[in-house]
């Protein structure tokens, strides 16, 4: 079935561009394909991948952003993960934190479980939700020119972006999934461990 909001962007190409030369960008990825995409773009200590805790990516990003006001946080997640944490769009906006952006890879499907239609595939508009929750800068990207512009803006602005990606499934690329290891190396890379 084809829907009017079906995207055409290649998710791996999109994420490779968004995370190109990441510098000290602090990246949180949501459970599922977003984690694989970020791992495929290049594993690094300042990527924190979720392999569970669905719906938590944006709030983890907020906790980091509040703790590290001089750095920028990018939450990279999917439509299904963000739908589960939709209230967090209101919480992050209400917090007043400006050093955080959220990029939703939106294919309108639950990719992990057989590509059933998600709510965004059935008419829900996460960009409109974010706007209504108080996000001042909300963008929908449908082509790579727009993605190229977003790469810089997502690292500098307090932005919510929806990237319309194609629904095809990519080969699994599995970054580390030991949570204690991921957390410890993130903190060491930031220099916030006591030892």
């Amino acid at each position, binding site marked *: 079935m084809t829907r009017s909001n079906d995207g055409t962007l290649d998710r791996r190409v999109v994420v490779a561009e968004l995370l190109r030369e990441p510098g000290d960008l*602090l990246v*949180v990825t949501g459970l599922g394909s977003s984690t694989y995409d970020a791992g495929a773009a290049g594993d690094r200590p300042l990527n*924190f991948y*979720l*392999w*569970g*805790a*669905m*719906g*938590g*990516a*944006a*709030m*983890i*990003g*907020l*906790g*980091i*952003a*509040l*703790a*590290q006001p001089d750095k920028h946080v990018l939450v990279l997640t999917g439509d299904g993960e963000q739908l589960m*944490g939709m*209230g*967090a769009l*209101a*919480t992050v906006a*209400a*917090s007043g934190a400006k050093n955080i952006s959220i990029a939703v890879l939106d294919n309108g499907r639950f990719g992990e479980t057989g590509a059933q239609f998600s709510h965004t595939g059935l008419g829900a508009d996460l960009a409109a939700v974010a706007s209504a929750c108080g996000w001042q800068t909300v963008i929908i990207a449908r082509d790579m020119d727009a993605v190229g512009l977003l790469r810089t803006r997502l690292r500098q602005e307090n932005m919510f972006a929806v990237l319309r990606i194609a629904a095809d499934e990519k080969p699994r690329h599995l970054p580390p999934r030991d*949570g*204690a290891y*991921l*957390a*410890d190396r*993130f*903190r060491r890379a*930031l*220099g*916030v461990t006591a030892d």
Partner: protein
Amino acid sequence: MQHATWQEGVYAALKTAGITQIGYVPDAGHKYLIEAAHADPAMKAIVLTTEEEGIALAAGAWLGGARCALLMQSSGVGNCINMLSLPINCRMPFLTLVTMRGEWGEFNPWQVPMGSATQPVLTAAGVHVRRAERPDEVAEMVAASATLAFDTQIPVAVLLSQRLIGAKVWVK
């Protein structure tokens, strides 16, 4: 140090423990702490739409080198269960103060099921649980629980009993 109320003692214990972020859902039992957090320029007070957001917030705080506490009511504990896999899997500290409903002098039957289940559910999910009954033990219990949570990197909940807080007076 002596404080005029146990609530002031609890806030002081959180400050001493190095807490700089507090996530909360609105709750009459946590009224003092919520207002104190908002009045404190060194504290980030974050209002949540649902309790599990606070677990993710605390995880992010820890990743960023800060310490966070979550204030909630017993009715919110059930919302948190799967998200507790986050601190447990990632060997992160987690500290929550839970005001109890559905026990001492409760008038609302809808509070009873989750109030009765709060402690066993937290224990089953892997959270270390303490329970405060008397005003003179609360601040010390919060301080000791913060040490346990942040120094050994485990999730710890302090239940504040309904008898301690005072049963909600519905008809005034």
